[in-house]
């Protein structure tokens, strides 16, 4: 693997037909680069949940994966409404999704907890009315980060 590899996708808000395509392409990129399966599987959970947050809550945004020999960084950036209470948003079962979205099986309040469970480091910066930047890191070798 080169020292740094980066892929970026524009995710459209409310586009449920295309939802998941960016995550799938990131997974294919990780496999192409020879990233071990346990890492790419964790990455898939993170990218999918981050992508769906962009689709459902943020009016779209940018999903980016940065791969270095040491780690994978996944960044989801949007200019959506922001997260008023981050502690509440991280609580399993809490969701602000609409009834329509819930009927499709989304909005179970498991997205951010799923991301946290599969990340070694998770940073969420959110400003009301400005947007949110989620940065999740997965290290390729044990001992380089603290899960959770």
């Amino acid at each position, binding site marked *: 693997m080169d020292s740094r590899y980066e892929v970026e996708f524009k995710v459209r808000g409310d586009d*449920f*037909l295309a939802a*998941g395509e960016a995550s799938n392409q990131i997974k294919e990129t990780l496999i192409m680069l020879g990233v071990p399966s346990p890492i790419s599987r964790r990455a898939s959970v993170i990218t999918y949940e981050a992508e769906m947050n962009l689709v459902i809550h943020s009016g779209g945004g940018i999903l980016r994966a940065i791969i270095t020999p040491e780690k994978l960084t996944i960044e989801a950036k949007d200019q959506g409404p922001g997260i008023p209470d981050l502690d509440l948003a991280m609580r399993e079962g809490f969701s602000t999704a609409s009834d329509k979205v819930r009927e499709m099986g989304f909005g179970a309040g498991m997205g951010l907890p*799923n991301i946290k469970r599969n990340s070694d480091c998770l940073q969420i910066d959110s400003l009301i009315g400005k947007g949110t930047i989620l940065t999740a890191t997965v290290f390729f070798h044990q001992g380089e980060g603290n899960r959770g």
Partner: protein
Amino acid sequence: MTVTSLIEALGLDVHHGGNGNVHVSRGVVGDLLSFVMGGAPEGAVWVTLQTHVNIAAVAVLKEIPLVILASGRIPDAELLERCRKEGISIATASDSPFDLCGALHDLGLKG
């Protein structure tokens, strides 16, 4: 057992058959996509009542070879098309999710 032998054993109505030679030993049931995304074993058979296209995205990422729609549910056109494109087998069972999972368990699949 293989996907093909499982489909035959359960008498499923197949809408699209992907790679029938894939071996399956695990299963998951659920209609919440994040539950399946976060908790399903890789390569599991997925039993659900959801019929829309986003099922396929989860199935691809979780390497799920066979989606079984329970209680006679029929896949939406977009879901069927995506399953064809991605090589995912999708079939309908007349059984309820409960009875279907019992049958899968009897065939040796674990959660």
